[in-house]
């Protein structure tokens, strides 16, 4: 820990007619060998009546650097080396050089009257200076501190913690965080994992409870948040400096839909040691119908289809309904709904009266049927035709808990549906204050896909815009990541109170949104090492570079190596595993005997019922839900092998 103030100046402010000092910018020179670099924070002291007293103090961050010698023109260097570059290095003398730096003002003390930066001595900033310069003194200390460590400012041999203001990161003053950077090098996911750990550790008590909901949209990125990762001494030192315990998340709940077979989970967290704590995410008709708009493409969105879907929701779903042809329906599942559709089509055909049914044209009804059956086909495993749903614990969210919804292998349409419904439910419960926590951080990667700046208006984009603009009042906070910030909807990124930048693509940096950055800062961004970020935060008048430790959780790639995903189990074995997870007394053969020659849909339905009910005797309940055994016409000979040790401790 280096906190001592270096009493020796490292530079002096200079001002010329061409490069004057202004209230927002100044220039200073240093020795050629200096620890100062782009992003360094410095303190300027105006010479007062006594040494270092009484004068104005200005804090600045270095935004550009210049080096030049007394060489009048490059031609003279060529002449003196007689055209041979090798000889240039043989000159007995080295030309006089200068290191001239440009710094942007972070803060002046006193703040009024605002004046040009004095031509004083320049010092390396200390810990206290960094806090002053970034105005962190207003929220890191005091009766109700609200500082959230985001990393360490590291420059000139100093490592000073940098804090974000929770009121501006998680609401209500401002909220949301956006992180940009090239894939693989910007460490966007790692940064968010670290920041979530920091929030969980430092979220102010007076602000209540907080949870995080992360959508895992690619690979195994977020599949091992509860497993410890590899840290080195430097990481541990940084954690200590930031006051964060380097440990994986203590409470993580995983949710993943099934694969099309309805029993194997569609996630990379299927290693036998881990799969037990992955909850299935299965939705039925009622969960889907409210978000039918998500399923319709732009051409589908017309008033007629919309009206028919509303009709289904209001008048049909979960109600006793007469189809007008003498049939009664109680629609609770996709299968029930399909029955209703068939009855309508048959009724219209038999009656031959017209193409209209209850003011809805048959073409509209066919279109809606097509789209809704399409979702149950494309998202089979997530959307069940006729089974009960398995959902997130709405109303039972727990403090400092991460909820991971793994939709990495789900059809894009299904991803949109999951995203839309989960966020809408979060918003709904937060509005009612009955979610279980006061604030939820929603982490969404690939914002370029979900909230692009151009392209058709989608339900997901509309919802992201809504969160961005109104979420801070509800405690619904969006942490979003993308590769190309310039291609994300302006209002989504514009409403992010805090912005992080990892290593950036040079083409992206050439877009107009980055014109406020100096060329040197852009170069630094384009070459930023892993683990370093540029931070913009409402309290910081200029972007600040920080370094953060590796997250203390197992990286997705390492996790997959250490816990390789299991191969898909057969239908029987998958059912056995799920039941055994609920009741360790259950033995495989008991289950296999029960489900032999059963229709898979019946088994899935019974399994879902057990999952939802969680009875004490899971096997008995499962047997009851399966109902009477249906004997096949001809029973195939079974090659049953009795267990070697029927009273084994082996769970199944």
């Amino acid at each position, binding site marked *: 820990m280096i906190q001592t103030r270096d009493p020796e100046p490292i530079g002096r402010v200079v001002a010329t007619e061409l490069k004057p000092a202004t209230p927002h910018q100044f220039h200073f020179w240093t020795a050629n060998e200096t620890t100062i670099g782009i992003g360094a924070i410095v303190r300027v002291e105006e010479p007062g009546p006594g040494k270092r007293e009484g004068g104005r103090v200005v804090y600045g961050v270095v935004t550009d650097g210049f080096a030049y010698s007394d060489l009048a*023109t490059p031609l003279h260097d060529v002449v*003196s080396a007689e055209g041979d570059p090798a000889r*240039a290095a043989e*000159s*007995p*003398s*080295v*030309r006089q050089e200068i290191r001239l730096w440009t710094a942007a003002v972070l803060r002046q003390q006193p703040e009024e009257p605002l004046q040009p930066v004095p031509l004083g001595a320049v010092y390396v900033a200390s810990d206290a200076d960094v806090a002053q310069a970034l105005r962190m003194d207003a929220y890191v200390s005091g009766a109700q501190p609200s500082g959230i460590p985001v990393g360490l400012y590291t420059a000139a041999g100093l490592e000073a913690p940098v804090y974000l203001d929770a009121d501006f990161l998680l609401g209500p003053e401002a909220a949301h965080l956006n992180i940009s950077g090239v894939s693989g090098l910007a460490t966007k996911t790692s940064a968010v994992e670290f920041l979530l750990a920091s929030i969980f550790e430092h979220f102010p008590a007076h602000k209540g409870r907080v949870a995080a909901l992360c959508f895992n949209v690619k690979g195994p990125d977020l599949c091992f948040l509860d497993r410890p990762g590899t840290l080195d001494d430097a990481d541990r030192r940084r954690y200590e400096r930031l006051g964060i315990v380097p440990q994986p998340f203590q409470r993580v709940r995983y949710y993943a839909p099934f694969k099309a077979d309805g029993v194997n989970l569609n996630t990379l967290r299927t290693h036998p040691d881990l799969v037990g704590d992955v909850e299935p995410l299965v939705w039925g008709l009622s969960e889907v119908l409210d978000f039918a708009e998500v399923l319709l493409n732009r051409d589908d969105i017309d008033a007629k289809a919309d009206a028919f879907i509303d009709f289904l929701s209001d008048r049909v779903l979960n109600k006793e309904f007469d189809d007008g042809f003498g049939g009664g329906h109680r629609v609770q599942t996709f299968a029930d709904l399909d029955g209703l559709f068939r009855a309508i089509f048959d009724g219209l055909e038999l009656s031959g009266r017209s193409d209209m049914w209850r003011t809805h044209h048959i073409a509209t009804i066919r279109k809606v049927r097509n789209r809704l059956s399409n979702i149950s086909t494309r998202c089979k495993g997530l959307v069940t035709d006729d089974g009960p749903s398995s959902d997130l614990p709405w109303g039972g969210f727990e403090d400092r808990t991460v909820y991971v919804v793994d939709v990495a292998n789900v059809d894009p349409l299904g991803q949109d549906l999951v995203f839309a419904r989960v966020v809408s439910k979060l918003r709904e419960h937060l509005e009612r204050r009955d979610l279980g926590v006061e604030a939820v951080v929603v982490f969404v990667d690939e914002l370029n896909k979900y909230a692009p700046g151009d392209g058709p208006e989608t339900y997901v984009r509309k919802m992201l815009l809504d969160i961005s603009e109104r979420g801070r009042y509800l405690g619904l906070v969006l942490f979003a990541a993308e590769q190309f910030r310039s291609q994300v909807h302006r209002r989504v990124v514009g409403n992010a109170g805090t912005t992080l930048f990892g290593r950036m693509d040079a083409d992206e940096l050439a877009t107009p949104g980055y014109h406020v950055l100096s060329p040197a800062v852009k170069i630094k961004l384009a070459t930023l090492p892993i683990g370093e970020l540029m931070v913009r935060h409402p309290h910081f008048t200029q972007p600040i570079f920080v370094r953060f430790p590796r997250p203390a959780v197992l990286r997705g790639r390492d996790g997959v190596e250490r816990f390789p995903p299991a191969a898909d189990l057969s239908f029987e074995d998958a059912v056995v595993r799920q039941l055994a997870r609920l009741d360790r007394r259950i033995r495989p053969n008991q289950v296999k005997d029960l489900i032999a020659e059963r229709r898979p849909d019946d088994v899935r339905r019974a399994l879902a019922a057990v999952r939802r009910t969680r009875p004490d005797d899971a096997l008995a309940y499962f047997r009851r839900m399966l109902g009477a055994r249906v004997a096949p016409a001809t029973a195939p000979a079974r090659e049953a092998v009795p267990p070697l040790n029927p009273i084994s401790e082996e769970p199944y």
Partner: protein
Amino acid sequence: MPSSWVDAILAAGAVPASYVPDASAGRTDLEGFTGADGVEDDELRTYCVADARPLAPGAVAFLDGIEQWRVVGYGGVTPIVRGYVAAAVRRRGPDRRLRTAGEVSRELAITRLDALAEPLRRALAESGVAVVELAEEDAGQPTRAIQAARRELERARLAEERGLAERCLAELGPDEWLVVDGVLSDSAALSAHRRAIGVIKSHGAQYFEGAELERALTLPAGHRTSVFQPRSRGARRAIYSWYLRLWPWEGNDLLYGLLRVEAHADAATVARASALSAWLMRERSPLSTPDARWDRLLYPIHDVETYLRSRAPRDVLSHPASRLPRTGS
């Protein structure tokens, strides 16, 4: 055609040339022609130094001085000149960077006190500034007085340089050399030191005539003359000297790139004249541009001058715009 006769003489063998810069005129107190005695050869010869192994001292101190002046007032028609002289030594070590090892500066007033009214004399006395008196015969005419003041200022600078050089010699390391911008023979200590050399870039004084003069002044680039001993009048000390051409003069003027080197008068100097010359040839790089004398001004000497000018008071030299008539009421 105006240039036809020029073409004709060039075609007849004249070496093309340009003008002679003012800086070539040199110091005002050096003799025009004194003559010289051959040391290395009876008759002046030229030697190529391209194959000589350059002397490579571990450290070198470079000394130079500056003078600045301005007429700050008149007492009647007698000018009162504010002068500033300074000298510095910048040392170059193995890292090839130059760092200040010593410096002196002095401000002085130059005038003829007798010619000033009593209040002026009193004001000068009370200010504490060192006053250098002009000779009575120089003070009558303002133009002449100013020229005399410049001479006095030059003498003051030389004195400061000499004093600093002698102090520097006392601190010189065993493998360290001192390179002085100017002659060594003004100082007994400098003349006697075996690791001090003077580099003279102005050629107001000439030591040869006839064929030897032509040989000296048409020296090819990368060549030196034989070592000779200038004859001197007055108190000048015995010294060995030779000419060295740093850059080809053809197309410029006879003195372009021409240095005269002074060193201690002993046999060792003759023995290492080529090595010293080769070292100075290496000092051509880096160029001391944008100084107009870059063809003869060694970069470290230029660096000392730059250092001294950056340290000089800002108000000694007048800004050109200040000579414009004042406008308004």
